[in-house]
């Protein structure tokens, strides 16, 4: 395919198209929205982890300024939420976690709403807490939900290829270890928000920060019992999501119910503490991994057994094993593989989607365990990987079809940049880890598609109309760059219209690193269709064959002629429709990638149309007296297919690495009997600028045949191998393996003393 320098815009460094409005405060986020007559909604949550309760709202209702108080009794026909439909928006008679919604109020201002919440009287009859997955699985453990008498979700995962147990038995070297992954929070800059307004009994408009506008339309219709065709979702500018807004949640239903009850617009806006307590988390897990290899270091067996704390109800966290199966089955060549996962109800918080969707957890366990295997086998960890690299053309045990694959190139580039063979000083360590992730969409619904309409107006302005969602990842900029490249129009003459289900076409939502790939392909193809229309019109105007029209940098001119005599896009556009029986230059393309819905039982199928690879490597120095880990240098080499926006992809990776370092070293939601002890940004430690190491980014361009200009999705990749790379480097520094995240100074110090 084409070389980098053949593009005018693609591959260049471009500031995000929405950067100025966000940086200057001009962007209207949900929390900024004020609709005429809008009321403030607020939710009363449980003050127990597990209890039966009775409720009296009469005092709250009498407070002046309170317009409505609702409970589960108010709208008894509202259906449950969650992919297992086990989560009522308002709980009736029993709570199973501190985040459980008991009642809600709508009042004229936030202060009155808070007063009303405090005036609701709840009497609890405590039930025994089940806050530990091992306890939850015991025979006589208290039961959370009648539909799961053993506290285990009916829905399980069991993937097998070959005979892993026999292969492990026969392996020359083998190792088995258990890894524990903590709860972490998305910490979006903007906490959860929803506003709802009814026009008549069944016309509903929701102002939302959702990542899934079209699926939300469907969810709301089903849960509220009205036709989805009567629902319009308008997305606000979204202050971060990272997967947390991939589901429809109780607070969103409650907002709609309060608006219905009051006949006025209602908003619910979380503060930071509520965001910590009542939004979803990354899925915590206990993972036991075994690997076996021959004496030459050829991997022969991998067995992966995960137990997930499902919390009190089910959101997407319970489906993360679906994606864990990708690295388990396909990271390096392993002939015999098994993955088992079960999800256990507890009185803890429940998890949702979070950047990487189970893959960071699985990769941490696998890549830590491979370093352990290397040690047992007496093979250098790098050499062990080299003997088992994935390759182009491979079909993996899960039937993933590997087209382009930069694993080898990423690994070699990363270890070179980190100077892997350089002798280590005392308490210094070096480590790395690899990853595989979906890079060409992920078919997890019947459709993985997205529709884009591109129109060109009389003034040469290009408008891209899409159902895709910008959550800060930079896809609006990528779409504008693609249109600029194809139609020769400067970026400032391009606008993106998204954020409204009334005009945006179906999009499966922003997840699975899919938007630049899927919507990029739809935009590219729609632009090319418009370009053909323009070329045809220009040919007519110039009275030549369309094949003789040259289109360059926004100018059409005859072959052999000069651009100075040519016609610009706006003039050609006008020539098309300022006439009788005219046509408007516009085109719609609906792109659905060539990937497969996996069989839910066998988990086999080519879920993505291409796969992204990457290697993180780092050098650390440990303070042996305090246990503090300092990262001296961090290298991230990624197979990105092709860079679209260099500045955007750098931002994605820098952000991913920061989240990955947080996951590895600092971030931890500390629960005690189901209660979160650190629901604030002081005690929940995100990494800050002064914690960030020097970073070197390396882009491996494998030019994927299916990607737009060869690009792969890269949104999640930046944090997937980070924690494993750091854990491996820490082991190299101190000679002890830490298998529980986060790797705190206290754990490191204890590990150092354990070695002595």
């Amino acid at each position, binding site marked *: 395919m084409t070389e980098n320098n053949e593009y005018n815009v693609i591959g260049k460094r471009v500031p995000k198209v929405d950067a100025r409005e966000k940086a200057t405060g001009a962007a209207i986020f949900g929390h900024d929205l004020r609709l005429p007559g809008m009321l403030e909604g607020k939710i009363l949550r449980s003050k127990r982890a597990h209890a039966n309760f009775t409720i009296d709202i009469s005092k709250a209702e009498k407070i002046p300024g309170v317009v409505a108080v609702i409970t589960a009794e108010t709208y008894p026909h509202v259906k449950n939420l969650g992919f297992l439909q086990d989560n009522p928006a308002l709980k009736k008679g029993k709570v199973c976690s501190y985040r459980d919604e008991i009642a809600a109020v709508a009042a004229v201002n936030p202060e009155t709403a808070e007063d009303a919440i405090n005036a609701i009287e709840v009497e609890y009859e405590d039930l025994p807490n089940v806050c530990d997955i091992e306890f939850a699985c015991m025979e006589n453990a208290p039961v959370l939900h009648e539909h799961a008498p053993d506290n285990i979700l009916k829905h399980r995962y069991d993937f097998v290829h070959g005979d892993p147990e026999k292969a492990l038995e026969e392996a020359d070297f083998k190792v088995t270890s258990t890894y524990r992954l903590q709860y972490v929070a998305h910490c979006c800059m903007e906490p959860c928000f929803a506003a709802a307004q009814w026009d008549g009994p069944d016309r509903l408009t929701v102002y939302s920060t959702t990542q899934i506008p079209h699926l939300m339309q469907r969810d709301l219709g089903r849960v509220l019992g009205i036709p989805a065709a009567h629902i319009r979702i308008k997305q606000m500018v979204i202050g971060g999501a990272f997967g947390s807004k991939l589901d429809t949640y109780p607070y969103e239903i409650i907002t709609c119910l309060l608006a219905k009850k009051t006949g006025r617009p209602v908003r619910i806006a979380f503060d930071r503490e509520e965001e910590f307590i009542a939004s979803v988390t990354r899925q915590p897990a206990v993972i036991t991994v075994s690997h076996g290899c021959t004496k030459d270091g050829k991997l022969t067996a991998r067995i992966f057994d995960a137990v997930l704390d499902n919390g009190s109800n089910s959101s997407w966290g319970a489906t993360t094993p679906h994606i864990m199966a990708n690295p388990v089955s396909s990271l390096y060549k392993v002939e015999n593989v098994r993955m088992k996962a079960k999800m256990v109800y507890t009185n803890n918080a429940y998890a949702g989607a979070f950047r990487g969707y189970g893959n960071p957890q699985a990769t941490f366990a696998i890549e830590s365990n491979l370093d352990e295997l290397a040690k047992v086998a007496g093979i250098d960890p790098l050499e062990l990987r080299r003997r088992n690299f994935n390759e182009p053309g491979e079909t993996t045990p899960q039937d993933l079809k590997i087209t382009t694959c930069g694993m080898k190139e990423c690994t070699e580039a990363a270890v070179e940049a980190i100077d892997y063979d350089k002798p280590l000083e005392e308490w210094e360590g070096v480590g790395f880890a690899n990853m595989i992730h979906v890079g060409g969409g992920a078919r997890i619904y019947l459709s993985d598609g997205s529709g884009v309409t591109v129109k060109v107006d009389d003034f040469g302005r290009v408008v891209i109309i899409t159902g895709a969602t910008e959550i800060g990842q930079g896809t609006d900029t990528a779409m504008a760059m693609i249109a600029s490249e194809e139609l020769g129009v400067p970026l400032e003459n391009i606008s993106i219209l998204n954020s409204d289900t009334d005009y945006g076409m179906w999009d499966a939502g922003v997840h699975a690193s899919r938007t630049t790939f899927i919507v990029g392909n739809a935009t590219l193809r729609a632009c090319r269709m418009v370009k053909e229309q323009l070329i045809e019109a220009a040919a007519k105007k110039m009275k030549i064959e369309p094949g003789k029209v040259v289109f360059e940098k926004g100018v059409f001119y005859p072959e052999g002629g000069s651009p100075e005599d040519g016609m610009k896009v706006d003039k050609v556009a006008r020539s098309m429709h300022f006439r009788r029986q005219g046509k408007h230059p516009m085109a719609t393309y609906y792109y659905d990638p060539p990937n497969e819905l996996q069989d839910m039982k066998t988990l086999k199928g080519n879920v993505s149309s291409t796969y992204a690879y990457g290697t993180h490597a780092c050098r650390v120095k440990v303070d042996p007296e*305090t246990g503090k880990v300092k990262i001296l240098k961090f290298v991230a080499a990624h197979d990105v297919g092709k860079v679209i926006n260099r500045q955007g992809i750098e931002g994605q990776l820098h952000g991913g690495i920061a989240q990955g370092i947080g996951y590895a070293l*600092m971030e931890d939601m*500390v629960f005690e009997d189901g209660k979160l002890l650190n629901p604030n940004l002081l*005690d929940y430690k995100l990494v*800050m600028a*002064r*914690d960030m190491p020097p970073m070197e980014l390396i882009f491996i361009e494998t030019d994927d045949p299916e990607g737009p200009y060869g690009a792969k999705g890269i949104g999640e990749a930046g944090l997937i191998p980070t924690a494993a790379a750091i854990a491996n480097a820490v082991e190299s520094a101190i000679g002890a393996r830490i298998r529980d995240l986060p790797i705190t100074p*206290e754990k490191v110090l204890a590990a150092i003393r354990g070695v002595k």
Partner: protein
Amino acid sequence: MGLTLPEIEIHEPENLKEACALLKKLGRNARILAGGTDLIVDLKEKRAKVSHLVSLAEIVDIDRIKKDGKALSIGAGATANRIAANSMVARFLPALVDACNSMASYHIRNLATIGGNIASAVPSADLPPILIVADAKVELQGPRGKRKVKLENFFKGPRRTDMKPGEVLTRIIIPAQPKKSGSSYHKFALRNATALAVAGVAARVEMEKGLIKKAAIALGAVAPTPKLAKRAAAALRKKKPSRELFEKAAAIAVRESKPISDIRGSAEYRRDIVEVLTRRALEDAVARARGKKRK
């Protein structure tokens, strides 16, 4: 959950007399507002419940840093960033600059005041340990006049001090530091910015003929109040500085600490950290006393 501030009346007296009178009148219904970086959070989260705030913003010179004879006087309203940028402070007690820069974040240090950091009496506060080893006093202005209290005697418990109703902490007086002395503050936190101390240790040593003439060690975040480790300091007297000596003193300091386990660290880990920080603080203080640059 605290999205909203309760209704609060803000008073802005223009002099200390007025401020003291107001505070006396309002009693438990009022708090003094300086930088507000602790107080506003406490009000939102309903840990502090008052209906009046008496702001010090309009009081002239409450933030002044000046020489007072041989001593240095720092107005209670001086922000951490102003103190850290002040050349007199840098000459007088460079470790105070280090302590200021270790606090919170740059943005918070633009607002947070030295008076607030002391009067809030949070056990993990960064400024008290270094001020205590420097023999600092605080000046309190009450309705009936002024009094001075040695900082080491000022703290009575977590968030409890010697201040009486109607009193305002007006300034901190740091006496001239002895010749051939050096001080340091070492803090350990779980993040490089915006993090409370897991432990903090300040040390001052005074040298004479190659021996330690006098020493002081103060511990932060490992007891209900910032605390002098007097026996550890006594063990250094008239001794030649050495790693072994500092390790011995550090081990004594650990026994003088009374840490608790909380979300930032277990009591056991805090004792480990006190030991490390005490030794490192002493090494630095001696290096400074000998006129050597810090590592």
